[in-house]
């Protein structure tokens, strides 16, 4: 856990693990909570197994779109999901590897102890390697996220 680069979020969800699992397993469920309204999420690829592709498209109110494609590195039913944007489906490397998310589900007296750990590559490296095309790929993402976060606040 690197405080500068990693995010860890834990929640107790008042539902058994297999029900929480359905929220991730079924793309029709995933699109309902992945992004805040009025952003509309479309599931582009949801191969919910180890090595499968994971693609979403978020459409903002102003019509701009933010697509991301990653890969499920590990899917253990009712227990764990690991995905990363370092790879797309079938282990093919992506241009700008950036984050890995580790989702774990454990039994809890009130239901499910849910945690999401999100690991990023070095912030300093991102700042120092502007010439390596980081901003080419991520500039758009950055802007999208910025407007996205602004929308979250409103």
């Amino acid at each position, binding site marked *: 856990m690197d405080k*500068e*680069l990693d*995010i860890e*979020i834990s*929640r107790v*969800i*008042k*539902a058994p693990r297999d*029900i*929480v699992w*359905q*929220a991730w397993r079924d793309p029709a*469920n995933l699109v*309902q*909570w*992945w*992004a*805040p309204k009025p952003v509309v999420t479309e599931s582009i690829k949801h191969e919910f197994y180890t090595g499968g592709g994971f693609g979403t498209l978020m459409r903002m109110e102003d019509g701009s779109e933010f697509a991301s494609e990653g890969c499920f590195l590990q899917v253990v039913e009712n227990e764990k999901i690991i995905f990363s944007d370092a790879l797309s489906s079938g282990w093919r490397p992506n241009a700008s590897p950036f*984050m890995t998310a580790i989702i774990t589900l454990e039994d809890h007296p009130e239901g499910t102890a*849910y945690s*999401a750990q*999100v690991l*990023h590559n070095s*912030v300093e490296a*991102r*700042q*120092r390697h*502007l*010439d390596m095309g980081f*901003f080419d790929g991520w*500039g758009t993402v*950055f*802007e999208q*996220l*910025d407007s*996205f*976060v602004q929308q*979250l606040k409103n």
Partner: protein
Amino acid sequence: MNTLDAVFHALGDNTRRAVIARLGGGPASVKELAEPFPMALPSFMKHIAILENSGLITSEKQGRVRTCRLREENFALAEQWFDAQRDLWESRTDRLADFVENQLMKGKNRDG
């Protein structure tokens, strides 16, 4: 143009990115910076002006030499990005919990 737009406009060009990369190694004069590029100085100065307007670099003239340097404090965008990511995952996890408790569980109770 807001700051972020200006920054991305500034970085949306190979010449300007190369200048930033060079200044990452320390301050340099306009003359030094212009050397690798096959363009007239006035054209190059336009790139410098765009970089300066974006807040990514600053320049000062001493005698006949204009020296450019990075404004490190404005490279904190990556950190803003990180905060945005945290917000994103916090609220995403809240929405997941809400969806499971209020949609999926209700459906389950109806079935059972």
